């Protein structure tokens, strides 16, 4: 556990420095807005990473919970509640709905869980679209107030950027503590070998429920921040297109790593932006890219870097002659999903 922390620590510092100084470097308002969205989606992807990357349960209802958080904050702040109270409340509601949906769905395994959650995700967005009295139906929710501290309103891009960055750091902090702990080992034991985990006394169902609730709490939080900063939301906020975007960020960036989801959430939209001239052919390129990554780097960019490090280290040890048992050392041993 400690080794892994040290190995990933340098990356955090670089990331943090880059994140804090980014507003000084980026002057283009459009690109800057993209960066803010990437920060929000980083939170969503990080939370997807907990249930999918670390616990091995492919939840495809993630955008649904993002939507619950968004509508929760939108409705509550429009009713006059402070953003700072509405956000944790909405996130908690999202976690609670996650608990209720998890009770039946987490009893299924593998692709069945993916299909079941996909259905629930779609149901959530349909409910949002048709519960007109509460959500305003397909016209959506407009004029959601921005977060405020006293008389200061988060209306400038820079202030919004640092606000979201703070929430991302909070998410990272929680994820880091969870993952590098006995609780994290419980999650990974379920991902890796559920029958064995159960046989050594781990309540795998409860473990999955905890992971699912925490993941959905942060998905809801990401949605709440999104609603408040964008100011208007519609049923498409909860669309499963979002889920699949985050899934791609996660797989490209590296599932079951902490830096991977953030890397993916920044790299992918930026690439999309710079390849704009290719129009729809972009999607073909990304399709091919995704296939290559899944086959050759099952743990994404970060996983690729890690296994490269591992391979170099192993070769070094072999040369030193103390690795007589290190025959099959490769990063392939720990696939994420």
């Amino acid at each position, binding site marked *: 556990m400690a080794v892994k922390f040290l190995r990933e620590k340098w990356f955090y510092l670089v990331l943090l420095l880059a994140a804090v100084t980014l507003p000084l470097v980026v002057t283009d308002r459009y690109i800057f807005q993209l960066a803010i969205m990437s920060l929000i989606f980083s939170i969503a992807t990080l939370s997807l990473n907990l249930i999918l990357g670390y616990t091995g349960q492919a939840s495809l209802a993630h955008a649904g919970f993002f939507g619950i958080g968004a509508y929760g904050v939108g409705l509550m702040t429009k009713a006059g509640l402070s953003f700072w109270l509405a956000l944790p409340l909405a996130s908690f509601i999202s976690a609670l709905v996650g608990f209720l949906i998890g009770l039946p769905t987490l009893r299924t395994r593998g692709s069945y869980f993916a299909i079941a959650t996909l259905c629930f995700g779609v149901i959530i967005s349909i409910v949002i679209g048709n519960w007109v009295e509460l959500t305003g139906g397909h016209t959506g929710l407009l004029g959601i107030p921005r977060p405020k501290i006293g008389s200061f309103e988060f209306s400038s891009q820079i202030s919004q950027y640092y606000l979201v960055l703070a929430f991302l750091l909070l998410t990272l902090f929680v994820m880091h503590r969870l993952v590098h702990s006995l609780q994290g080992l419980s999650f990974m034991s379920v991902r890796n070998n559920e029958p064995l985990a159960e046989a*050594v006394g781990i309540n795998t169902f409860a473990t999955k429920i905890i992971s699912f609730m925490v993941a959905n709490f942060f998905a809801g939080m990401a949605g709440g921040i999104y609603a408040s900063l964008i100011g208007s939301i519609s049923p498409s906020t909860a669309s499963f297109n979002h889920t699949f975007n985050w899934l791609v960020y996660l797989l490209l960036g590296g599932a079951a790593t902490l830096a991977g989801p953030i890397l993916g959430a920044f790299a992918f939209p930026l690439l999309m932006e710079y390849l704009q001239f290719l129009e729809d052919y972009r999607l073909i390129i990304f399709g091919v890219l995704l296939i290559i990554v899944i086959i050759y780097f099952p743990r994404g960019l970060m996983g690729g870097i890690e296994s490269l490090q591992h391979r170099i280290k192993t070769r070094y040890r072999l040369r030193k002659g103390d690795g007589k048992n290190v025959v099959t050392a490769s990063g392939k041993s720990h696939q994420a999903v």
Partner: protein
Amino acid sequence: MSLLQVENLTKRFEGLVAVNDVTFNVDRGEILAIIGPNGAGKSSLFNLVSGILRPTSGRVFLEGQDITGLKPHRIAQMGITRTFQTTTLFNQLRVADNLAIGYRMRTASGFWSTIFHTRRWKEDREKTMARVLEVLDFIGMTDKAFDFVSTLSQEEQKRLAIGVALAGEPKAILLDEPTGGLIQEDTDGITQLIKKIKAAGITVCLIEHKMNMVMDLADRIVVLNYGNKLAEGTPGEISTNPAVIEAYLGREYVA
């Protein structure tokens, strides 16, 4: 009183009786071997005792307490852990992490204490580290603590699987073919380890095909055939029992 009592245990799959009205006791501190030809119901019996399968009828008692039909993790928490016939480990993780997961059920830190690093979390972490070191030493793999499972030899993986089951401080451990697929030299190593487990006061229940190993290790033997208990006794009694010899070697060998 016996540590583990199996009473009239029956498991019926559609059209097939895997385990039929089997009764036996496992005494505290002994090594009990369960032998029988392929398909005799040995692994099914383990699955019934460890809660992976629900029995059709019959009861299982641990220290007099009825544990029939409990979830596997509950049975593990009450003190029965097991290994599987095909070596199963957490093969994406390191050796030490595997053992820590084995001890996880003896720790209580959950979500909040993990987030806030409470005193309980710190105590749990120290307890776990101490236990992992202890088990590493016990199974003789201290130098492999930070290796990934995929880099271990077959024999080391078998050792580790036993270590994972031991880490949670069980009262009884069920070993399903702990030396399956190993060469003789490695088998001896595992045999020594099983003797060590017995010496540590842990009751062992063992499924094994290698007869010389069973005869060497077991205090008592239960023989299964087609789901029925064929015989029960000391290795000496079993090796001269005509019904056992017939089941194993065929009728013509019965002298």
